[in-house]
């Protein structure tokens, strides 16, 4: 119990950073995911292809490598970012790539007739997306998106390797100073679990609800 009281203030510092990375990462990668998904789905020349290359890169290489490239390689090209900004950028580029594919999949799954009916009314692309396509695509997008959020939260632990003292790193430092390893890492694990498990449940429930909707449709 003493251990818990002693490590908690330190862990809270780390939790604070982890939450910052997670929330900034979620908001920005969501934005990237939706814009990227629309660009990919609409096959915007050049942009779509370029983003496609990025997606392939992200899928085919470890996340840590992306973080290292941003933190250690970009400065050679004149782009020097702090550790936290590098961490967020890495998360956004990485998770944004997967979210792009999720959003694209959702948009492409909406019946083509919906697209045509919306166009025939004279709706602009944005009006069509907002009122007709995305409200229908969202059922398909939401469950995997929640799953992707879970992966994002977990991926924040990787950025400790460029010297960001998020919660996992704090745990490591505490145990190196001789704190009880089981209790310390147990508390770190509990933190991740409390954040991630509700998202996992939400994702599963949405998935189940959606498949029912598909069956009845």
């Amino acid at each position, binding site marked *: 119990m003493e251990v818990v009281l002693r490590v908690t203030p330190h862990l809270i510092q780390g939790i604070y950073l982890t939450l910052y990375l997670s929330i900034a990462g979620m908001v920005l990668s969501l934005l990237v995911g939706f814009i990227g998904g629309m660009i990919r789905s609409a096959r915007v020349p050049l942009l779509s292809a370029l983003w496609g290359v990025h997606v392939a890169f992200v899928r085919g290489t470890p996340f840590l490598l992306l973080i290292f490239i941003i933190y250690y390689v970009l400065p050679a090209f004149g782009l020097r970012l702090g550790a936290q900004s590098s961490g967020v950028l890495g998360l956004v580029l990485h998770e944004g790539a997967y979210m792009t594919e999720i959003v694209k999949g959702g948009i492409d799954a909406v019946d083509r*007739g919906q697209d045509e009916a919306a166009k*025939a*009314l*004279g*709706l602009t692309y944005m009006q069509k997306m907002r*009122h007709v396509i995305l409200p229908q695509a969202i059922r398909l997008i939401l469950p995997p998106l929640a799953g992707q959020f879970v992966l994002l939260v977990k991926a924040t632990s990787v950025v400790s390797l460029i010297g960001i003292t998020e919660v996992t790193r704090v745990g490591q430092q505490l145990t190196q100073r001789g704190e009880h390893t089981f209790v310390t890492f147990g508390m770190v694990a509990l933190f991740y679990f409390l954040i991630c498990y509700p998202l996992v449940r939400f994702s599963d429930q949405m998935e189940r609800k959606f498949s029912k909707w598909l069956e009845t449709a």
Partner: protein
Amino acid sequence: MITVTKVNKWFGKLHVLKDVSFNVAKGEVIVICGVSGSGKSTLIRCINGLEKIQGGTITVDSMNVHDPKTDINLVRKEVGMVFQSFNLFPHMTALENLTLGPREVRKMPKSQADQIGLELLARVGLADKAHSYPASLSGGQQQRVAIARALAMQPKVMLFDEPTSALDPEMIKEVLDVMIQLADDGMTMLVVTHEMGFARKVAHRIIFIDGGTIVEEAPPDAFFTEPTQERTKRFLEQILPV
């Protein structure tokens, strides 16, 4: 109202429309018929720019539809379209389906759009279905909502692509009745259909298209009783009860 001049259209190597030309005057009802794959859908989809053309010109209300300088949405504002598969927006009620276009495209206030929407639903006999979702409507009801949705934009022209082909026989009449009424009210209409009874009753002209070419174009009387082309005769023998 509509001029189609020497239109050519390819899907890859497939030449789907070949030098197609015809005009539609204001208030005219034109029926387009032909066998499956002859290019009927493609032709009317070119008129509101859902398909691109590779040659010729199409104008609607003096707007050059396929000119890159034309804002296609200005054309689409004036051209209503009804699809074989209804394509209602499933996440919106019947009334919301009707008011989306007027509110977003015509920037109409909600109260006014609702009022026009309710009047139109009454006109197609569905006043009591305003707040129903498409999934709870029969096919015939859905198609009537789809017609009302197109009309809610107050278009100058209405395009119909086999509006009754996906319907059970007992529902065809309720949709045709709405279309007949629309024709009587003076709407300019371009209708792809196999409903020859409808064609006989309301069409001013019938266009028979085969292999992407207009083979015959005549008023219903002449079309049914004295077709000039061999291909038209064969087509009529196939579809008309002897």
